[in-house]
């Protein structure tokens, strides 16, 4: 996996938000300004989240992996947001079970069949409580990038 083509400091967010909508808007604004996603991405993302929610309760920490159809993506990337306080997401595979999410991985993916590497890095992170904890405790963008980069090297995908 070409790490730099997916992750960059400009796509790391520290967000103080009270709702899912607010998180989506803040992340979308920057990703759109920087040309990663199209204007239509935000609405498509929100709509898909209603039908196919992406909240996931891991061992201890709640996370979410919002994503939508590739037609709304210009340039593949992953937005990573660490929330100041958890925000409720509906749990994947359910209609009304909620999970308090603290970390958001916003996936802007174009060719899923070719992106197994980056998806494996993300699921690997999700399944590792210590790594999620270290992302939550990181206080600058550089640190977040270095945690993900180090893990990605170790995984070697």
């Amino acid at each position, binding site marked *: 996996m070409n790490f730099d083509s997916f992750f960059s400091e400009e796509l790391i967010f520290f967000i103080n938000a009270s709702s899912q909508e607010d998180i989506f808007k803040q992340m979308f604004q920057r990703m759109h300004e920087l040309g990663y996603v199209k204007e239509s991405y935000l609405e498509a993302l929100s709509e898909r989240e209603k039908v196919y929610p992406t909240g996931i309760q891991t061992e201890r920490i709640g996370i979410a992996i919002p*994503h939508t159809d590739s037609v709304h993506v210009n340039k593949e990337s992953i937005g990573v947001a660490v929330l100041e306080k958890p925000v409720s997401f509906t749990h994947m*595979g359910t209609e009304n079970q909620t999970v308090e999410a603290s970390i958001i991985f916003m996936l802007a993916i174009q060719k899923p069949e070719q992106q197994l590497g980056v*998806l494996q890095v993300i699921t690997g992170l*999700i*399944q590792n409580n210590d790594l999620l904890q270290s992302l939550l405790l990181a206080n600058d963008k550089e640190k977040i990038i270095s945690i993900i980069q180090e893990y990605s090297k170790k995984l070697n995908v």
Partner: protein
Amino acid sequence: MMKRILVACGTAIATSTVVAKKIEEVLGNKGHQVYVDQCKAAEAPSKAASFDLIVTTTPVSGVGDVPVVQTVSFLSGVGMDQDIQKIMDILGLE
């Protein structure tokens, strides 16, 4: 004959890709070669008939008699071993 597993998720963008790979890997490590294909949940009814099992992250309907395991354990890591056992039991693998 090689067992066939269909992996479904909402839009077949992210989750089914990882789940399919994970299942192939874990069962492979246990010495079981399986054929895994992936699709959107909405496509499951039309594809189901030629599969022995459907593993999905989101509810699917209209898949007839094909057994369904709905789980997010292959993403969250929580409860994955039990789900693998369940899959092996359904497929009659040891």
